[in-house]
């Protein structure tokens, strides 16, 4: 199978270019295995990966125009040449390695932890099974960035729009029965940029390797704002 791989080393290259590699594909091979084989062929090639089973969220790349997590992307899904690029819209550090600082900064800005007004109890704070169910489809996010870097609104306003990942996380804590900072969280998302740059394009839903739905979470935040304003 032929791979056209994006190469760019800012120290030596004036411009990025695509380099072709030939990899013999075996049954059950994932894209990450092919990238490791390419690294064997040319050890100057750089990409991130770690766990190899879709948990750490490090090996997100752009495959034929779509953001995928390489370790859980079977090569059997593709015919013909593959074009592998780094995530769109992020500064390239080298080859497929991009700078995700801004993405993590947005995550941090939504206060991704439980905020309590009451004093913390001695024991754990209990939830009913229904209250716990509300967190399904939200807590599973692995922060891979496939969603936010495929979102056009995040491309246009990456410093101001929180992006689908951070907004999914914001809803994860708004939906949590143990959290007591609903008003503060909603106020923090006011203004035209942080939440409302989302135009329901739904690229994030298509991109998420964990099958999560940030668009739906954003809709829930908007409904909650509506409910709290009347």
């Amino acid at each position, binding site marked *: 199978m032929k791979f056209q791989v994006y190469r760019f080393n800012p120290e030596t290259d004036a411009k990025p270019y695509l380099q072709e590699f030939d990899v013999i594909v075996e049954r059950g091979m994932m894209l990450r295995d092919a990238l490791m084989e390419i690294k064997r062929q040319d050890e100057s090639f750089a990409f991130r990966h770690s766990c190899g089973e879709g948990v750490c969220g490090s090996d997100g790349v752009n495959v034929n125009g779509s953001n995928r997590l390489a370790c859980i992307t079977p090569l059997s899904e593709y015919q013909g040449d593959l074009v592998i690029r780094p995530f769109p819209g992020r500064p390239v550090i080298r080859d497929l390695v991009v700078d995700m600082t801004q993405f993590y900064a947005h995550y941090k800005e939504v206060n991704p932890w439980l905020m309590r007004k009451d004093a913390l109890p001695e024991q754990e704070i209990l939830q009913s099974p229904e209250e716990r169910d509300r967190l399904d489809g939200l807590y599973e996010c692995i922060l891979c960035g496939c969603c936010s870097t495929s979102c056009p*609104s995040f491309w*246009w*306003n990456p410093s101001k729009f929180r992006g689908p990942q951070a907004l999914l996380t914001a809803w994860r804590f708004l939906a949590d029965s143990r959290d007591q900072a609903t008003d503060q969280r909603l106020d923090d*998302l*006011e*203004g*035209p*940029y*942080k*939440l*409302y*740059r989302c*135009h329901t394009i739904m690229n994030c839903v298509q991109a998420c390797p964990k099958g999560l739905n940030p668009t739906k979470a954003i809709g829930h935040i*908007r409904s909650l*704002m*509506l409910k709290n*304003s009347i």
Partner: protein
Amino acid sequence: MSRTASGFRAWILQRISAAWLGLFVLATLGYFLLSPPATFEQWRAFVAHPVVGTLILVTVAVVLLHAWVGIRDVLIDYVPPLALRLTLLSLFGLGFVACGLWALQVILLASGLA
């Protein structure tokens, strides 16, 4: 728009105005299918009716509001330079106000009030 009106309120205005416009289009289509005004005089009488004239003016205002939120969204997304964005916003804003005044003039003339 004030700072607090710029996110949530713009969004909810967009939804409410869209619902109003949808209803208005359906209602007018229904009316024109059942009894379309045939002559200029009938048209003028239709528009001069106080209820119809008021509804039209309200709808023009709603269209302009809807367009304002929409164009503001487009400019925020695609025109990052602040000076250019403000210039374009002002031009559209003036244009929208002019459209509204023009519609007002049309209705007043038709009703014989101006």
